[in-house]
């Protein structure tokens, strides 16, 4: 039979292997649950089935579309082809303005209404999120 040492080693290796497999499985599993997909207004219009999960929508804030009251902010995100109405009741980042790029995170109510839980900050005036750039085409 094998010595005690070899047995111990074997046990150790098996333990390591199992824990590695388990943790990889765990990580991938939660990755699946916690990923947020990005979509443009046009993509949403062409959806066959509404996504119930949290998504991100990017595009430009339509000119003259911001409407504000004490409770919430309403605005329209456009990719210059299609648009979607957004309602939001949270803090807005510095560079949120009409005609500028925006990324909103939240849930779809239907193909025309989006309820945002977060509006993402940008750091730089000239910078446009790549997702937004892609969504509005190379304009």
């Amino acid at each position: 039979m094998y010595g005690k040492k070899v047995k111990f080693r074997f046990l150790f290796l098996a333990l390591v292997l199992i824990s590695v497999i388990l943790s990889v499985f765990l990580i991938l599993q939660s990755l699946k649950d916690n990923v947020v997909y990005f979509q443009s207004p046009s993509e949403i219009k062409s959806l066959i089935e509404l996504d119930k999960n949290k998504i991100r929508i990017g595009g430009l804030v339509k000119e003259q579309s911001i409407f504000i009251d004490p409770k919430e902010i309403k605005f329209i995100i456009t990719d210059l082809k299609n648009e979607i109405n957004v309602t939001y009741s949270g803090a807005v980042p510095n560079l949120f303005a009409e005609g500028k790029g925006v990324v909103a995170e939240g849930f779809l109510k239907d193909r025309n209404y989006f309820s945002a839980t977060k509006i993402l900050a940008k750091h730089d005036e000239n910078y446009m999120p790549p997702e937004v750039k892609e969504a509005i085409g190379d304009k």
Partner: protein
Amino acid sequence: MLASQIGYYSLILGLLLTFTLCGVSIKDFNSSKKNVDQNIYTLSFLQLFLVIVSFLSLILSFVKSDFSNETVFNNSHTTKPLFYKITGTWGNHEGSLLLWLLVLTLFIFLFLIKSKEQPKKYRILTLLFQQLIIIGFFLFVLMTSNPFNYLFPIPTEGLGLNPILQDPALAIHPPLLYLGYVGSSIIFSASLSAVTQNYISKEWGQHIKKWILVSWIFLTIGIMLGSIWAYYELGWGGFWFWDPVENVSLMPWLTLTALLHSILVLERKTILTSWVVILSITTFTLSMCGTFLVRSGILNSVHTFANDPARGIFILIFLFVLIFLSLGIFFLFHKENNKVSKNFFWLSKESSILVNNWFMMYFLSVVLIGTVYPIFLDVISTEKISVGPPFYHKLIAPFLAPFLLFMALGPKLKWIKSKIEDKISSVLFFIISVALTFIILKNLSIDLLFYTVLISAAFFLFFTTLKELFVKKFNNISQLIAHFGFSLFLLAILFNSILSSEIITNIKVGEKYNYNKGEIFFEKIEEKKENNYNSIVGFFKITDKNSKTIQLKPEVRIYNQPTIITSEADIKTTLLRDNFLVMNLVKGDEYFNIRYQVKPFMLWIWISVLLISFGGTMSLIKKRYEK
């Protein structure tokens, strides 16, 4: 003009000198002389000197607002305060790479003069490996990101520095972070050299530990400063967002922490040698990867200055060369040391340190996958995704409780074999911690099992280390302080996340907003004119249910160059809580969007991180003192 030229030519000269240095080192490596050739010291010093000259001339160009220099033109402005003209030097891509180079040369020079008791061949080989990295960065700076590009005709005014970077915390954050990041290059070079020379021993462990500590301390404080900045400048009221850019700084920190622990085993028992080398290689590789991801424009953030694919490709190639080279060396030269007995008892200090390493590797893989997976998916398909905080919280939080228990009990075990002494006090502390947690959480009416377990574990570590600190006095004090700091850190974070409250509303001047715990009164606004920005200061009176009133004055700044609006949060910090108020213009100036947060124990998060790094510093000083 002149300064730029001096800067540029000293860089070229520096590169040429590096080749000479390599030549002299190789010659000296093969010679039979006992000591390192004096010329090597001189050349290494000259190399450092030339890079410093180059760096200083860039600073000078910034101070003088010399817009014939492209870097200055892109990132500075005449109306900018002097302090930010200087710090703007490393607030951009070109300048920050020059800083990388500066730290690289600084560290190898310090290594040379501080390692005189080490074997000659080992020292020279370390120097050579480091020079390889230095040459790579010289070429990188000169070929793709020359800080001294000439502009003609000379513009009269610069484009200005992004205002959110004009901040004291951010002025010192890059240099400190770089000392940590780039400090790991020495560990990398030294481990490769030690592998080749078959010199991985107790002496080597003791010697390299200091360098690991230095990197680790700077990295810890560097990350903290970035986090403090994000807390008050970005206006989100949090201090960690699991943003990819934050993650890439956390990853080398995790491996460095693992390395710091396993080197303790190596310096006593000469085991885990391959593991230490692998960790050293990984740490530096992760630092380089971080630089690659941040600089290539793959990750978009405030760190992305200008996207230039050439830069990304250069770092990527360089990175691959380094990885293959180091792995090649490792597999070719590494020999297991068979002389050392391998009696490994399961309940001993080294196995508990191994446990630490396993946890660190697990945390690392979570952060790595969360950061890299979206990039990977973007490359292989068109799908764009993001991985948010819930992913990290879900995967990391459950493992923190056992991690904390090991942190409390592990250090009490003896090397190799240990009897579990003072079982009674441990059990007692455990009961106290659980009871205390129950009482506190009952009072707050939170009955989540998850919090109970985590907070109990944190309290357990807190009490155990506190007791040891009093009983043992100076024995092992650095470890105790660091672990104590960590328990404080987690307690602060946990209570902060449980007890934080937030009000977000849109409000006009003169209006009152009532919420269940009090009232926010927007008294008035005042306008202020500064040299490089105009600001609107809001005056708020916040009355809580005990009718205590605090006044907060957040600001909205409109910078003139470049035209950017930033909000300056007003934070009232006390030992118990931070009151945080930030306001923002939405459209016109009728409504202001405000966010008011009460964040308990914020100050303790920073204090505990300082304590953790202070623990590291103690360890560094203690070693010196004993000699």
